[in-house]
C-alpha cells in the first residue's frame, strides 16, 4: 500500500527533524563550553587564582574578583535566606491557604522575578548607593542582589514545605506542640533538601549577575575587606575586559572559571534535588 509507505517515509523525516532539534541544543551547549574551555584552559593556574589584577587587568590574576564574587554572594544569601524561608513558613503554616495576603505576596514575588536586572541596578543605585548613602559597595550590591534572589528562594521553599506530609502536622499538633515547635522540629527538617536546592540555584544566579552589580558595587579592582568597600566581581571583570579589549587570555580564564563554577553549582543542585525527592516518599 503506497500510502502506508509514504507515511513511514514522512514519519522518518519528522523524527529526524525532532532529533535534530535536540542535537542542536546539545551542540550549542557543547560548543560554548568547549570553546571557553579550549581557549581558557591555558590561562588557568594557581597564580591566576591567587594573584590580584595588575595594570587594570592587563597583568596578574583575578584573585580580588574571586573574593569579591564570594563575598557578595555570601552576604546576599545571608540577607535573602532568612527572609525568603521565613516568609514561606508564614505563608504555608500561618495563613489559610488562599488568603488575600498569601496571594498578594506570591503575586509580588512573581512580579519581582520578572523585573530585568538592569532595572534592579537602577533601583539599587538610587536607593542604596545614593539615598541610603551606602555608596558603591559590597553592601549595596548584596542588598540589591538579595532582593533579586528572594523570589527563587521563597518559591522553592514554599514548594518544599507544601510537600511535607500533612500528617506530620496533625500528629505533632495532636501531641500538644505549638505551631512553631511543629515547624522548627518536624516540618523544616523534612523540607530542608528542597529549600537547600533553591538556595543553590540562587547562588548560580548571584554569581552570574552583572548589570545590577555594576551599578551598585562599582568596579574597583581592590580587595574588598569591609562590606562598605567597593568591589568588582568576576562577571563584571569579564564584561569590562571584553568591552575594553583588555587581555583576551585573562578574559577567557575568567570566563572558564565562571563556567566551571556554574557547572559545579548545577551539579550540587541536582544532587540536592535527588535527596529531596527521596525524602518526600
Amino acid at each position, binding site marked *: 500500500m503506497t500510502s502506508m509507505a509514504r507515511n513511514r517515509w514522512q514519519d522518518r523525516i519528522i523524527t529526524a527533524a525532532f532529533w535534530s532539534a535536540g542535537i542542536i541544543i546539545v551542540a550549542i551547549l557543547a560548543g560554548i563550553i568547549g570553546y571557553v574551555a579550549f581557549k581558557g584552559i591555558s590561562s588557568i593556574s594557581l597564580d591566576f587564582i591567587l594573584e590580584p589584577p595588575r595594570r587594570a587587568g592587563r597583568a596578574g590574576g583575578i584573585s580580588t574578583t574571586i573574593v569579591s564574587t564570594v563575598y557578595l554572594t555570601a552576604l546576599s544569601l545571608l540577607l535573602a535566606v532568612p527572609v525568603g524561608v521565613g516568609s514561606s513558613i508564614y505563608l504555608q503554616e500561618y495563613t489559610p491557604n488562599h488568603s488575600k495576603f498569601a496571594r498578594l505576596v506570591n503575586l509580588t514575588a512573581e512580579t519581582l522575578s520578572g523585573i530585568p536586572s538592569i532595572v534592579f541596578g537602577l533601583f539599587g543605585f538610587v536607593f542604596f548607593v545614593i539615598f541610603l548613602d551606602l555608596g558603591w559597595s559590597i553592601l549595596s550590591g548584596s542588598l540589591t542582589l538579595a532582593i533579586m534572589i528572594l523570589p527563587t528562594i521563597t518559591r522553592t521553599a514554599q514548594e518544599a514545605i507544601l510537600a511535607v506530609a500533612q500528617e506530620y502536622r496533625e500528629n505533632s*499538633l495532636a501531641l*500538644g506542640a505549638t505551631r512553631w*515547635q511543629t515547624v522548627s*522540629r518536624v516540618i523544616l527538617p523534612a523540607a530542608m533538601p528542597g529549600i537547600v536546592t533553591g538556595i543553590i540555584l540562587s547562588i548560580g544566579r548571584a554569581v552570574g549577575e552583572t548589570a545590577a552589580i555594576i551599578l551598585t558595587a562599582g568596579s574597583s579592582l581592590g580587595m574588598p575587606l569591609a562590606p562598605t568597600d567597593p568591589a568588582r566581581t568576576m562577571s563584571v571583570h569579564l564584561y569590562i575586559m571584553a568591552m575594553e579589549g583588555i587581555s583576551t587570555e585573562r578574559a577567557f580564564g575568567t570566563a572558564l572559571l565562571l563556567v566551571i563554577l556554574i557547572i559545579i553549582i548545577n551539579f550540587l543542585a541536582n544532587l540536592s534535588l535527588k535527596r529531596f525527592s527521596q525524602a518526600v516518599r
Partner: protein
Amino acid sequence: MDAQLKMRSENLNVFYQDYQALHGINMNIEANRVTALIGPSGCGKSTFLRTLNRLNDLLEGTTIGGQVYLDEIPIYDKDVDVVGLRKRVGMVFQKPSVFPMSVYENVAYGPRIHGVKNRSQLDEIVEKSLRAANLWDEMGSRLNSPAARMSGGQQQRLVIARVLAVDPEVILMDEPASALDPISTAKLEELIAELKNNYTIVIVTHNMQQAARVSDYTGFFLNGSLIEFNRTRELFVNPVNKKTEDYITGRFG
C-alpha cells in the same frame, strides 16, 4: 455514685461553613473505659472525635455550638490553652505517621516539646512508653534506627507510645487498625485492653466486630446524629433503635 465521667458533650453542634456535620450530640465518656463510635462513612464519628481534642480548630470555617467537658471543665472556653488540652487528650490517627526521625526521637518528641530536657528523664519516659505500647521487646535495642523502616503494625504501636509519652489521660483513636494486617490488629486490640486500666479510650471504628470485642460502651452515629448509645453488650444484642439494628445486621454499610 457510679463511675466518673471523664469527658462529656452537651448539645454539641459542628458546622463546616454552612454544612452541619453534627447535630446536638449528648454523649458521656466514662473514665477508664473504652468507648467505641461506629457508623457508616461520613456519619460524623470522626468529626465528633476531633471535637474532643479541638483538632477541628485546624479546619477553616469550622464553628462549634454547645460544649465539651473534660473533668467538668469546658474545653471550648475562650481562655483554654489548647496546647495543654492536647497534652491531656492525645490522638492516634488512622495512618500510622511516624516522624522522619529515629524511634527514640519519635517517642521523645512529645516530652521534649513540653519542656523535658534531662537526658536520663527522657530515657526513662521512652522506655516506659515503649513498654506500655508493647514495643520495648522488639525495638528496645534499636532505638536509634529510623522509625520509617518499621512495619505498619510496629509504626502504629510507636505512634501510641509517642502519645503515651506525654502522659495523657484520654487517648482518642481514629480507625487505628484499618491500615493494619489481622495479626497486628489483634496485637493492637490486646494493647487497648491493657491501656484502659490507666487511660480513658475513645475509638472510632468501621469494624463492628472490633467494636464489639474491644469496647465497654458504643455510640452509633448516622448522618451527624447520635442515634443510640449504650453498653456495648446491650447495643449489639438488644438495639433499641431500628436504624441501629439495620446497621448492625449489615442492611446498610
